[in-house]
Structures are given as C-alpha cells and as structure tokens.
C-alpha cells in the first residue's frame, strides 16, 4: 500500500466547505437544457399536415380543428392534439415536423387528478411552458424527409434554341422514385389543385414503382394528365408541405413520369370505357380544347353520345395552337386525345359553329350544348400603328399549322405574361434557324419581379437570347410606308391609379425606340362570340363581358353550358375542372329528362 492510498481518504475532507452538489429543492428541479418535456407548437407556423401524427409510433396524436385556425391554401386548419397517456417523449414528431413549429419544453413535472387534462393541443391550450426556450429542438443537421429535389436533365440554352424539340427530359423512372420518396402524403396540395387530383396517392404509386396504377388514378380526375404533366401551372406546388424547409415536391414532373413510363398502347387497356348502358341522349360541344374534351370524356363515359365541333384543323385548342411544341410536343397531345376518342367521343374538325353549322341547329338536334370556345382573339394596344402589329396567338397558331410566317431579324414583343414568352421564344427559334442569331426584344409595363409570366419562362427566354425591357409602355408602332420599323416606348412611372384602376403613367422624357421589323402584341385574349348571333347574345345574361354561369357552369339558358377560358380560365387544369363540373350538371339534366320520359 502506498502512502497516497493511505492519505487519499483524508483529502476528501477539503470539499467540506464546498457548496453541496445535491439539489436543495428536489420538488422544483428543472429538467436538463435539452430535456424532452411537454410539447410546444407555434400555431401560426404549423400547417396541420399531420406528419407528426403519422410518424408517432404510439398513436399519441390526433389532428383536430382548433378555434382561430382555418383551412386555406397550404394549411388544413387542423392542429395536433397529444395524448400524454401514450406519449413516450421520443420526439420523432419534433424531428419530422415539416415546418419546425413543433418543439419540446424541458418541463416534465405536472400532477393532476383528471387524466383528460393530459390530452391537449400544444400551443392552442395555453400552458405555463409555452414560452420556455429550454427543451428539445430538432438539430438542424439531418432531416427525416429529403430536402432537395431529385435531379432531372434538360437541354442547355445553346442546344435548344435552334429547334422546337422538347426542352425538359422528364424524370427517369429511377429519379421519379427517389423524388416520390420525399413526399409525406399530407394531401394539403389536393385542395389547391383546381381538379383536386389525388396527388399523394399517385405519388405513392410512383414510389412503389406502380406506374400503371398511377396512370389509372390520374385519369380518374384528369384526362389531360400527359399535357398537365408537362405544362401545368402547378399551383399545387405552392402549398406543398415540403416547401417550408426545402424544395417542394416536383408534383408536375412526377405526373409526367407516370404518363411517360406507361407504354402508349397500354393506355387503351388501362383506361376503359365503363360498362354502362347507352342513354341515347346527345350532346354537342363547341370547341375541342381541354374544357370541351374533358366534358366530352365524362359524358361519353356516362353512356351519352357526344359530338365535338372544332373550328380548326386539329383538336387540342390552345394546348396545340398556343403552347409551343418545345413545351408540349404534338405527338403527346395526339395520343392524349386518342384516349378520349376511344371513349366514343366524335370530334369533327374544320367545323366552325356560326359558319359551317349554326348554334340554333345544334340546339335543335342535341339535348344539350356546351360552349368551350376559349379566347382566340388577341387584344390590341390600340397605339398608333397597332393595326400593323401581329397578335401573338395568331402567330403561334400559324407556326403550329406549319404556315409560313414572316421572320424579320429583329422582333419586338409587347407583354410580360406567358404568352409573350411563348411567342418571343418561338420567334427566337425561327430567327436562329434562318439567321443563326436571335434578335427579340420583350417590353412590358411591369417591373421584372411583377411580370405575370412564370419565373422559369422569363429565365429561359433570357438564356435563349431574348432581351427584356421591363417597365416600358408602348406609345407607337413606327412605320415607314407599309413596313414596320420599330416600337416606341416610354418609361412606366405607375400602372394603376389611387383607386387601383388601370391607368398607366409615363415618364415622357425617358423614350426608347426598339428597332423591329415586326411588333407582336401579347397583352391578352378575348372570345370570338360572333357564333352566338344577335338573339342569343341578347337573351343570355352577362357578367362584365363574360357569359354568366352558375356554380355548375350552366348559362341562363336551360340547354346551354359554358366551360373553360370563355368563362373563367386561366389555364388547362382549370379548364379540366370546369369540364368535370359541367359534365356532372349536364348529366343531371339529362337524367331528369330521361325520368320524365319514362
């Protein structure tokens, strides 16, 4: 035994004067700083996605409506209620929380004789620890759900500008599965989609590699899933729970991945006409755009005879004659429409109602008529020289139809929306093919960050060489003799007056001349309603220049419905949703008629 061993017990005596390390008041002992105690939830941050409920392995969480929280875009209005009789304080719910709203205080002592007191909604049912800063918060090093999008290929600007080939590759099936795996399937996006597609369900099919099952689901809500998988305005992605702490799920591209992964001929096996008796009732649909064709799809599947009258050479409406091929290839659209035709829908092209056949004839020969003629007349700026301007949608239609369009070396486009970007980028391609260079100027009243066009459209246009001049108002289309020489613009000081009415103010000293052999107006479209004729126009009720419809799409005439851009808009998926609504309303009327006859 060493001397040290002998002495060491006595050295402990030096601690006699130290503060004791034991806790003086064991009844009010605070938890450790990162102790996992009762939950806290920031009610304004929480979106009611239910991921916490889903992950809880003790089934301790219920999603419940809460006073003061309402369902709206990206928020279900529900909030998690926790049953502390089941909670094991594992904090998985905090780790998965999509917004970071859910945390844990370090408070863990609480005595109550009422067991139901331990079931409450953290953040809504006030507790003394609600504002405590100590406790468990998720460490921001790793997330249970992936925060970045799976990569997807697309053609770089220099490769795509000399042709009209599709830009975006779309996910490979493998990439799609990886992307689908990030979805927490909360379903908040479903309310935002105008057609309320079963988004989490079809994403789950992708994740499981069941693309055929996915396709069946898509067609339950959207017969234009192939088109929408490419060009949808994808507002659903603006309410995706994943956006709060990472990239939103690429919902649109996942939809496309399903439609691309199923071989075309398989569509006809998977999407079959239901076995229903023929009703013998007939519906005429005017216009073969997405609104008209969705109505036709639903009504044909319900056993009615449907004939679609289309003014142009081919069906598809603005999806064919507006949206350029590099965003939506024609063969995709052709296949999409052939699936609709397989339901027994008859499409008669080159039949302009009001010319080849009158709307009165349709009214007499059919049980119901649906007006889905879209917006096919370009609006004009009416500035001096504007009679020499081209209308964007006119040009786009002619490019699609393969007609010769004039392609000057310099083109000026008026407008800052998606149509403006489409025509600018289409003209840029034609210029590149002919001259090897791009000379497109885009001018719009708005500042660049207020442009109506999608961000990616603007960026891609710029990448392709289009030059954008924001906040410039057109004053004159300059002409020399019969030829256009350019566009004169003033700087915009304000677009709206104090009352919010459209009344642009300009700085006249800031003038620019944009040299151009062609000026294109892309400032909006309107319907050509001449087909209605004077009497019907008079009879119908109107609402600020548009035909008035009820919530089901019926006009003030009992035999006439309207759907799509002609009444509402603004995009394909709204047209599809309108189509479903109108089909149901027409179906109800037809059923009532059948019943009367029996």
């Amino acid at each position, binding site marked *: 035994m060493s001397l040290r061993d002998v002495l060491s017990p006595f050295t402990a005596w030096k601690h006699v004067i130290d503060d004791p390390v034991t806790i003086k008041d064991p009844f009010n002992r605070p938890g450790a700083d990162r102790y996992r105690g009762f939950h806290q939830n920031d009610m304004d941050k929480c979106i009611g996605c239910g991921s916490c409920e889903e992950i809880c392995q*003790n*089934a301790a969480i*219920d999603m419940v409506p809460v006073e003061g929280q309402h*369902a709206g875009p990206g928020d279900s209005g529900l909030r998690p209620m926790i049953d502390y009789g089941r909670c094991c304080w594992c904090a998985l719910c905090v780790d998965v929380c999509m917004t970071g709203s859910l945390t844990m205080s370090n408070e863990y002592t609480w005595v109550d004789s009422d067991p139901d007191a331990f*079931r409450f909604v953290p953040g809504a049912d006030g507790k003394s620890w609600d504002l405590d800063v100590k406790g468990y918060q998720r460490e921001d090093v790793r997330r249970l759900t992936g925060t970045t999008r799976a990569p997807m290929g697309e053609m770089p600007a220099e490769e795509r500008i000399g042709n009209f080939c599709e830009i975006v590759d779309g996910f490979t099936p493998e990439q799609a599965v990886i992307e689908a795996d990030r979805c927490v399937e909360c*379903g*908040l996006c479903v309310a935002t989609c105008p057609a309320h597609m079963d988004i989490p369900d079809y994403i789950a099919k992708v994740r499981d590699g069941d693309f055929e099952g996915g396709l069946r689901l898509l067609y*339950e809500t959207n017969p234009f899933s192939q088109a929408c998988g490419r060009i949808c305005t994808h507002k659903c992605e603006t309410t995706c729970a994943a956006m709060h702490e990472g990239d939103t799920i690429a919902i649109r591209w996942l939809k496309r991945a399903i439609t691309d992964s199923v071989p075309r001929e398989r569509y006809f096996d998977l999407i079959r006409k239901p076995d229903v008796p023929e009703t013998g009732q007939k519906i005429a649909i005017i216009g073969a755009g997405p609104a008209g064709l969705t109505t036709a799809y639903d009504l044909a599947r319900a056993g009615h005879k449907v004939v679609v009258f289309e003014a142009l050479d081919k069906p598809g409406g603005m999806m064919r004659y507006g949206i350029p091929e590099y965003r939506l290839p024609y063969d995709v659209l052709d296949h999409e429409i052939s699936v609709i035709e397989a339901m027994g829908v008859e499409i008669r092209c080159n039949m302009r109602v009001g010319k080849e056949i009158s709307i009165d004839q349709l009214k007499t020969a059919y049980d119901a008529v649906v007006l889905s003629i879209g917006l096919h007349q370009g609006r004009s700026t009416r500035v001096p020289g504007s009679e020499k301007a081209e209308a964007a949608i006119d040009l786009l239609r002619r490019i699609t139809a393969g007609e010769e369009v004039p392609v000057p070396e310099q083109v000026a486009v008026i407008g800052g929306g998606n149509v403006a970007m489409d025509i600018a980028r289409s003209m840029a391609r034609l210029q590149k093919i002919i001259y090897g260079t791009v000379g497109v100027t885009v001018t719009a009243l708005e500042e660049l960050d207020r442009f109506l066009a999608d961000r990616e459209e603007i960026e891609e246009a710029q990448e392709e060489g289009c030059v954008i001049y924001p906040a410039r108002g057109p004053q004159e289309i300059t002409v020399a003799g019969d030829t256009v020489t350019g566009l004169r613009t003033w700087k915009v000081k304000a677009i709206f007056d104090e009352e919010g009415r459209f009344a642009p103010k300009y700085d006249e000293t800031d003038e620019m001349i944009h040299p151009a052999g062609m000026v294109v107006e892309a400032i909006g479209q309107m319907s050509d309603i001449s087909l209605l004729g004077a009497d019907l126009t008079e009879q119908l009720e109107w609402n600020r220049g548009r035909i008035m419809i009820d*919530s089901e799409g019926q006009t003030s005439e009992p035999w006439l419905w309207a759907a799509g851009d002609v009444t509402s808009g603004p995009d394909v998926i709204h047209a599809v949703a309108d189509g479903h609504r109108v089909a149901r309303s027409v179906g109800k009327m037809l059923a009532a008629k059948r019943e009367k006859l029996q």
Partner: protein
Amino acid sequence: MREILYRLKDRYHLGTPTFQRTDLCFVTVRRDEIRAILTELRDMEGFTHLTFLTAVDWIEEQLFQLTYMVNNREANLSLGLRVLLDREDATGDTIHDLWPTAATYQRELREMFGIKFPGSPRVDEEFILEGWTDLPPYRRDFDTLAYSQQTYNDRPGRVTHDPKTHMQKTLYPSYPKGAK
C-alpha cells in the same frame, strides 16, 4: 491505420475499408475470422478497448450486421469490424473471454434482435424488457405502432381528422370528385 489493415490483409479476408475519418475506419470481415482478428488487434495492435458491439437489421438482404468497434487509445484510432449473419436463426460467436463487457452487449442483442451468442454468461436472462413475449423489438419486422395499440389504452373520446378530407369538406364540398 492503413498499415494495420495491410498487416491483417495478408492473413484474413477483409472487405474494402471505408474511411469515415483518418482515425475512424470500417471494414467487413468473415464471421469465422472475427475472433482471431479481434484477438490480434487487442494483443498486437494496441486496440485494448471495446467501445461497443451493436447490430443493424438489413431485412431486405435477410442479414444482421454486427459492428464491433474497437479503439486504440494510445494512437487514438477507432476501427469498426462488421460481420454479417444470416438473419434466419442468427448466431454470433461470443467474445466475452476477450472483453468481459461484451457479455452485456451480447445479452442486449439477444433481447433486442434475437441474435444468439452461445456460451456468453447470463445471455438468455431478461435485460431491460420484462415479460416480453413479442418479436424482439429492434427487428425491423417488429411493428411498434401495432404493439403500442394492442398494449396501451386510448383515452375515451379520441377522434382524428385526415387533413385532405377535412379540407375537401370545408373548402370544396360540391366539386365532382372522381368524375368517372
């Protein structure tokens, strides 16, 4: 670390080493060589400390992975040795004679994963689960949620709401959903 691996490689079957850091490396070895390698590491290479012994359930591959983490305090090196066991009737070789603490780890693995370690002291006694009759709970085929639902009661009156359905009811009740 690399030199040590080179020395071992001559006589044992080593997989491709993964260097997590310069002082932390993982390598897969054969089950019938693990005891020999551990003994050599302990006695010849200064890895005197068994940091932990743990398991991973690779259910898709029908394998359990044992990870033996050993540490050389002097040189500040950590080496993780992985051994793969058939998941069906999984049995490992006890190393309690090399490190007595291993007996405790092996008892835990027996309870949590159902991996057997014949000859390990008290290995079949309950460790932390008392009266457990279900599947070993760290196995990935153990359904935690179903277990907790069977085992624990709910407070009466609990109701939950699906966010999607709730939004449909409150925001768009009349939309023709599933217009087929």
